[in-house]
């Protein structure tokens, strides 16, 4: 009996993750208030972390929380507080342009599914040796890893420089 | 040069923090300065001035007051009301009414000083409390003493 209950709990939590991802995403793009958008984004990112965990990768899930919520979201919160002058501009009313993402993504999805038809699933979630990631980052993927660290450094310095330009002139 | 000063400052700051922590830790092991009132009370100083009270005659148990009203006349706040009369067969008067308006009293002590028979003294009652102001407007100081009337 416990096993069925635990399966129910598992499906319930998975459904909650989906609600977090999609509901948060919808709030993030449609809400009028920028702070609601921000928290929509946070909930969406959390949900995506849950999806990563469900795909058998707790490491990526935790990194997602750490980097996105710890760094990106904090930076966005900074941006919101630094650039908020009056009420937020909100969203434009939907018009014919709303068809663009729908059509585009439907086409993408269609072609993806078409492409998937012939493929057979070779692996399944819930199994992988994550400790290999560290080794691979320092061996096979060393160059991209280093390039990304340089990119991050350059990006941070560049961001600070850009943000300070006006201050130096004025 | 700059770096040397900086490091020196950091190290000095760290040790000053340690000094502060030593002080507070010392406080933990010293006796508390507070007293757990009302479980325990601090000893009252000898010259504590509470409201005035009437002393009783040791032999008779009656109030010592002879109703001379010098206290009432001397009181700068005029908060004392005394009346007295002679009990039968006695020469001296004895107070039959001695009221203090404690809402006016400034505890100056002139009444205690002036009393010719030493009938007044400061009480050591420091924790008076009441729900109404009227309780203090006319405190009967003869309460609890015997009466010849």
């Amino acid at each position, binding site marked *: 009996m416990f096993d069925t209950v635990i399966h129910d709990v598992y499906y319930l939590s998975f459904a909650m993750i989906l609600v977090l991802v*999609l509901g948060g995403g919808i709030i*993030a793009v449609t809400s009028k208030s*920028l702070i609601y958008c921000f928290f929509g984004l946070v909930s*969406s990112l959390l949900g995506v972390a849950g999806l990563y965990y469900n795909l058998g990768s707790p490491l990526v899930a935790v990194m*997602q929380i750490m980097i996105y919520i710890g760094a990106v979201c904090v930076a966005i919160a900074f941006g919101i507080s630094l*650039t908020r002058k009056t009420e937020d501009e909100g969203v*434009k009313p939907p018009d014919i342009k709303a068809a663009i993402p729908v059509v585009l993504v439907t086409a993408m999805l269609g072609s993806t599914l078409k492409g998937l038809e012939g493929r057979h699933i070779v*692996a399944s979630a819930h199994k992988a040796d994550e400790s290999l990631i560290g080794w691979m980052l320092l061996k096979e993927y060393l160059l991209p890893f280093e390039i990304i660290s340089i990119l991050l450094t350059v990006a941070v310095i560049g961001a600070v420089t850009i*943000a300070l330009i006006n201050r130096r002139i004025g | 040069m700059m770096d040397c000063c900086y490091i020196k400052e950091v190290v000095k700051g760290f040790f000053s923090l340690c000094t502060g922590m030593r002080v507070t830790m010392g406080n933990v092991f010293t006796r508390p300065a507070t007293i757990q009132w009302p479980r325990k009370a601090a000893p009252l100083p000898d010259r504590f001035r509470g409201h005035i009270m009437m002393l009783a005659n040791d032999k008779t148990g009656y109030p010592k007051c002879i109703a001379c009203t010098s206290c009432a006349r001397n009181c700068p706040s005029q908060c004392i009301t005394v009346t007295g009369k002679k009990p039968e067969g006695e020469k001296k008067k004895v107070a039959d009414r001695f009221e203090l308006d404690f809402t006016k009293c400034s505890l100056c002590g002139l009444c205690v000083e002036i009393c010719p028979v030493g009938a007044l003294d400061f009480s050591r009652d420091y924790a008076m409390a009441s729900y109404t102001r009227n309780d203090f407007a006319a405190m009967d100081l003869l309460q609890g003493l015997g009466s010849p009337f």
Partner: protein
Amino acid sequence: MEFLATLPNNLLLYVVVAHALFAIGLYGMLFRRNLIGFLISLELLLQGVGINIMAFGTYLVPDPIQARITTLFIIGIAAAEAAVFLGIAVAVFRNYQTIGVDELSKLKG
């Protein structure tokens, strides 16, 4: 019901969710009037990409490690991109006192 039971371990679900997130992000990029809102939509869009890569890498490739490393790289690049974007947004706000996308059209020259 049986289909539902396999859902959490089904590639199709992840692909559909990823595309939905991508569409949501794209919608936001088209309709938000604010640079920060724009960035938020962009992050959602990148999430869609990340889920897709993880899902494909987990189900279709024998070794899922590569997909994870790629996703980690995407997360890192997104952080760098957000930093630059916010720097630009703050600088624009300093210069023009607004980060509304419509008002910034004079940047055209």
